């Protein structure tokens, strides 16, 4: 594959927070998407969410005016993958599950097709052990909301080939994103820094040092954080945050990465953040 390659159709696996956001970004950039998840109810919800996100992107002037939108198809099977110009995996942050699904993907796609994991922090080389062609696998770390954040962290595993790295950078250009390529490590750069910081922010609240609002206000007002760590937790999804912290703790052994009790409690209570209507903040009422 060459860098002037055209991307007409990509496959996105997982229709949750990130799969939906990446799909919105692709459609809005004129690239058609085959969106795959395990059940049709999730896909139906994603379809309506993507419609809303496309309107949001337009409202904020985040869509290019120079091209028609891509087409969306949804499916509970990966059979369409043979026709994809690239595959982006955005399923649950579970190393075993990702390895299994990426292994299946690598049997279905044409050789040379970028197989991209959007993992928050599972090392790419660990996943590379499960695929047919490790040179075709790499990581991209899109941020939520994907269609509004123009920067993407790209992870090159030790076995990632030059060709798919170049093809992925071309895809990101089509998607109007800027990329920074980093080496493989647990949490890469952004999760390694952000996730323990959010974990500490939750600990600070649990210990009674400050309220949720005051932690966010201080981080915004004093340190220039755009939303504050706890509002960011709500945006990420606290279930995913805990999974990503667990994965990071398992691989680094650093106590700071072990999800604190308050985060776990929120997951047990179903307070997952924006996606469930309540997390550290309430999204049913009040301004979001």
């Amino acid at each position, binding site marked *: 594959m060459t860098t002037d390659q055209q991307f007409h159709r990509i496959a996105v696996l997982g229709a949750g927070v990130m799969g939906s956001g990446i799909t919105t970004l692709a459609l809005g950039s004129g690239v058609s998407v085959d969106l795959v998840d395990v059940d049709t109810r999730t896909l139906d919800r994603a379809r309506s969410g993507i419609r*809303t996100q496309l*309107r*949001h992107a*337009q*409202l*904020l*002037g985040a869509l290019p005016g120079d091209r028609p939108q891509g087409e969306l198809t949804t499916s509970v099977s990966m059979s369409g993958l043979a026709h994809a110009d690239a595959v982006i995996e955005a399923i649950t942050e579970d190393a075993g599950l990702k390895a299994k699904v990426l292994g299946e993907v690598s049997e279905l796609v044409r050789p040379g097709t970028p197989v991209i994991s959007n993992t928050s922090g599972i090392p790419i080389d660990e996943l590379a052990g499960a695929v047919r062609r490790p040179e075709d696998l790499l990581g991209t770390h899109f941020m939520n*909301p994907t269609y*509004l954040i123009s920067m993407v962290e790209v992870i090159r595993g030790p076995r990632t080939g030059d060709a798919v790295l170049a093809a992925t950078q071309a895809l990101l250009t089509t998607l109007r994103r800027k990329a920074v390529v980093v080496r493989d490590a647990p949490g890469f750069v952004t999760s390694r820094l952000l996730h323990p910081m959010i974990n500490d922010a939750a600990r600070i609240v649990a210990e009674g040092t400050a309220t949720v609002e005051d932690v966010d206000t201080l981080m915004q007002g004093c340190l220039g954080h755009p939303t504050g760590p706890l509002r960011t937790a709500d945006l990420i999804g606290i279930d995913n945050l805990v999974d990503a912290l667990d994965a990071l703790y398992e691989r680094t052994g650093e106590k700071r990465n072990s999800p604190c009790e308050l985060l776990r409690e929120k997951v047990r209570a179903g307070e997952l953040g924006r996606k469930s209507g309540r997390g550290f903040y309430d999204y049913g*009422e*009040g*301004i*979001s």
Partner: protein
Amino acid sequence: MTINEAATPALAAQIQAGLLAFLEAKTKQVVAPGQDIFGTGLATSMFALELVVHLEGTYGIEIAGPDLRLEHFRTVEKMTALTLRLKAEAESTDSA
């Protein structure tokens, strides 16, 4: 003068009051009709879409295409003007 035109000032006042009440309930702050709600940090870009959906649901209008721009939602006055225009357009196509 048509009935519609005579009704406009009253309708405008009603839309404006409704929007101010909606914003004040959401932000728990007093909002002025000409205040730039995004510029003053009162509302976030995530909240902008809630305003769109609120206006569509309350006034039976559809905000799309070139009208779907943050600029039109910056102040209560601008949102009122947009709503009045889209309502009038919808009613004229209904009766046509």
